[in-house]
């Protein structure tokens, strides 16, 4: 079983750390993982994205052009990656940042109002965790426990007090898709 995931958004939205958290969680469940960021000057105020592959077997190519799922946090990223999702795949998009939702019919599309919910949770930075929670609700490839363990690795020591807030955000994300707005 291999999951090939694209995560994309603006530079400051926590796209790379969301991917890293997911990857680390995979490790804690004994899987093979690859995390591959986009890098370079496009990060300067622009967009950022990463690929996460989680697999039970050795991962051959870290470079893939097609994904099982995509977690999309802004419009330019949706425009760029919508067509890279495999037929029957999934797209999770943040509805505040994406004005024109995906139009593909051969994939499952999940709208997640994560920005709004983050404001509600008084945790603006938690938007990415809400997205991740939503993703995990539909794809329980790793457990919340593993994600929390992973956060300890990804966050610098001085931010470990934020983990419980992140946990809330994750859970909120999961709830959001317990009654998903399928579009």
């Amino acid at each position, binding site marked *: 079983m291999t999951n090939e995931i694209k995560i994309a958004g*603006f530079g400051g939205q926590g796209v790379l750390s969301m991917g890293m958290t997911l990857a680390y969680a995979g490790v804690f469940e004994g899987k093979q993982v690859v995390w591959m960021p986009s890098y370079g000057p496009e990060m300067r*105020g622009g967009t950022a994205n990463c690929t996460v592959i989680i697999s039970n077997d050795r991962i051959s190519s870290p470079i893939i052009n097609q994904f099982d799922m995509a977690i999309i946090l*802004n*419009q330019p990223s949706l425009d760029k990656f919508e067509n890279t999702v495999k037929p029957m795949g999934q797209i999770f998009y943040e509805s505040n940042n994406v004005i024109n939702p995906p139009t593909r019919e051969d994939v499952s599309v999940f709208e997640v109002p994560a920005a709004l919910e983050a404001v509600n949770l008084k945790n603006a930075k938690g938007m990415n965790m809400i997205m991740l929670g939503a993703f995990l609700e539909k794809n329980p490839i790793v457990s919340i426990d593993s994600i929390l363990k992973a956060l300890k690795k990804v966050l610098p020591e001085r931010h470990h007090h934020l983990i419980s807030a992140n946990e809330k955000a994750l859970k909120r994300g999961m709830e959001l898709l317990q009654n998903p707005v399928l579009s």
Partner: protein
Amino acid sequence: MAKIRGHVSIKIENCKGCELCIEECPQHSLEMSLKINQNGYHYAVLVEDNCTGCINCALVCPEAIITVYRESKKKKEPVAVISNVTENIKISLDIN
């Protein structure tokens, strides 16, 4: 001292929200908008009608997107300035 009447027009879709213009305006005529533009930045807007057209804001604006107007010495017909709209429109009716 008679106040010179001025006005600024900001190409807000290119604003990066650095707030340097705000910091530099002696009149405190500028503030940040709550909204964000398509690049995800809050942008500067003229909020007080007390601009003197001193061009300070324009000089420090890194994006060079502030146009500054000042009341003409040789007064003539009026001119309409539309500014700070989200679309990139700047119409200066110059009936000269």
